[in-house]
């Protein structure tokens, strides 16, 4: 009897494991689904089309920033300057758009320069971490202060409105659908394509075992630098979204977002030690953070307990993720 019972059981565990190996973000997906249901239970209005669009347009910046973080975490690195890169790009494009008159051409040119700036910041990080071999956590902490300083120089106090064209597009609709849905669609295609590139595999290989990667002939330094470049690029994209959602420049806007981006990466099932993870998981991790914040409020938590509950909920989700993930990892 016992043997008959264990047979299908172990096969089922095996298939769950295979599924998790193939799609390591499944636990995160389950958690996001559960959080949606809970939010809907406590406040049905929070599941309305309008509220969901709002959730996406507000958290799109954190989603992109978490994805940026994921690429360096892949390689076992970390970037504590993503929030500052976001602030720097935010104030730069705001100032440029204003200076050039705020027309369509000015907006596009500013965005192109914003992308270049993000890449440049990524390059600085990559050089100090991979080429100069400084410890990533401290080196990027230092560059974060440097980037914030630059942002404060460009725009000393928050202000300067974005051109109406820009934020109306971001918050508006295209062919009847909210613009953020298109961003999400393009993002998913982009992530899918990036996941198939050699770079993604190389980053994971470097993160899994740097020594082994080096010995098999991978250009470890260049791979890590390219990881930071990708990170800078996505941080710039995140800056576009925050500029769209806030319609203004703020040299300190990204400061608090850095650690949230790290949290989202971990909530999404990636290992901070590197070599294991998915960008889709980080996307879901960012949504998890947003949904937890709303849920704590919709549950009617008294204000003095809201921080406590948020921390507790994030810890619980982390534990759930670890328990589910443990089965998948060898």
């Amino acid at each position, binding site marked *: 009897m016992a043997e008959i019972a264990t047979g299908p059981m172990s096969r089922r565990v095996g298939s769950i494991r295979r599924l998790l190996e193939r799609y390591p973000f499944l636990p995160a997906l389950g958690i996001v689904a559960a959080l949606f249901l809970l939010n809907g239970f406590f406040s049905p*209005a929070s599941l309305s089309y309008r*509220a969901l669009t*709002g959730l996406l347009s507000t*958290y799109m910046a954190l989603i992109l920033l978490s994805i940026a973080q994921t690429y360096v975490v892949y390689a076992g690195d970390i970037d504590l300057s993503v929030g500052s890169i976001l602030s720097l790009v935010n104030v730069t494009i705001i100032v440029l758009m204003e200076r050039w008159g705020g027309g369509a051409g000015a907006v596009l040119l500013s965005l192109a320069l914003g992308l270049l700036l993000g890449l440049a910041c990524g390059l600085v990080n990559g050089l100090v971490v991979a080429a100069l071999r400084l410890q990533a956590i401290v080196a990027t902490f230092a560059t974060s202060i440097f980037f914030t300083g630059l942002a404060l120089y460009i725009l000393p106090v*928050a202000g300067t409105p974005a051109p109406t064209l820009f934020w109306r597009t971001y918050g508006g609709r295209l062919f009847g659908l909210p613009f953020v849905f298109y961003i999400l669609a393009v993002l998913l295609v982009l992530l899918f394509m990036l996941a198939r590139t050699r770079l993604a595999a190389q980053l994971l290989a470097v993160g899994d075992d740097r020594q082994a990667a080096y010995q098999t002939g991978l250009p470890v330094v260049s791979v890590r630098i390219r990881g930071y470049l990708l990170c800078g690029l996505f941080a710039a994209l995140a800056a576009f979204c925050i500029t769209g*959602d*806030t319609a203004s420049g*703020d040299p300190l806007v990204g400061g608090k977002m850095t650690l949230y981006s790290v949290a989202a990466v971990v909530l999404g099932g990636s290992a901070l030690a590197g070599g294991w993870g998915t960008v889709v998981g980080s996307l879901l991790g960012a949504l998890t953070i947003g949904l937890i914040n709303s849920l704590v409020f*919709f549950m009617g938590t008294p204000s003095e307990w809201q921080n406590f509950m948020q921390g507790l909920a994030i810890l619980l989700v982390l534990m759930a993720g670890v328990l589910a993930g443990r089965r998948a990892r060898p």
Partner: protein
Amino acid sequence: MKRFIAFAMGAVASMAISASAFAETFKIGLSNGWVGSEWRTQMIDEAKAAAEKWKERGVDVEVSVQSANVDVPGQIAHVRNFIAEGVDAIIINPNSPTAFDPIFAQAKEAGILVIATDAEVSSPDAIYVGIDQTAWGAAGAEWLAKTLDGKGKVVAINGVAGHPANEMRVAGYRQVFKDHPDIQIVNEVNANWDQAQGQQAMQNILATYPDINGVFVQDGMAAGAWKSIMDAGKKDQIAATGEIRKDFIDLWIKEDLNSGATVNPPGVMASALNVAVLMLQGKELKEPAKAGQYGNALYLPIPFIDSENVEEAAKQLEGKPGYYSYTSSLSIEEAEALFK
């Protein structure tokens, strides 16, 4: 005990009116994006107490609070949650002056009154009810200039560079010192509204400029700065601005410090709430909120504590915990006086 009596009296009063007989019911959302200091906690508690007071007048003001350490998108989400909940008004202590323009526009479209407090916002769809931070900086500087008889060397210890309130305060004191040509600002440093950093900064300053006469230090750092001044044995040579917290005011009296404190009262949110309820009742301001750099501000009076009235301030704070701040807010009657 006091709270219980208040509660019991409230209960009796509401029974007398009978619970369902409220003439009006308003739902007001309070959003606070930073919980790093007791000042913010007191701000919310006072706002809740102000809402409770409306019950005596037959107005049921239900408050719904979101208060947590969030980034700017997190606080935008606060506003979205309030819109989803269908509140009548939102009172917000905003994490950014400009970032809320689009979401406030959406709130207004949904027929929601938006009031910012403690920090001004640029949105034309909101009004600001609070103190003028430039005037706050100027008031402390005026006191310092007067105390020093218009001459001497001063240093400034400021908060977070780039933070709008900080920049306004800096502009405020710089203007005042410019009008006193014999006062020389020898250095300005940032200590990020942190007591430990304020103490450290003051130590460095005393080591570098042993002959300074005055210190313009913002609240949240002044207790730390004063500790360094006292440790250096210079409390009788130096005049410096102070804090409005009870523990500092007690120290002030005990050590007979030469200090003056501009009050940024935690009651600003309570004042904003009273203004909000009156606006929801359809009343109109005598003078529309058009002040400030964004043209949407209604400035509240700024109290000042100096050695003349510090005993009175201490009296208000008697029996409160050490972190409790001296406060003031518009009562319902005072708020009504602002309306037609």
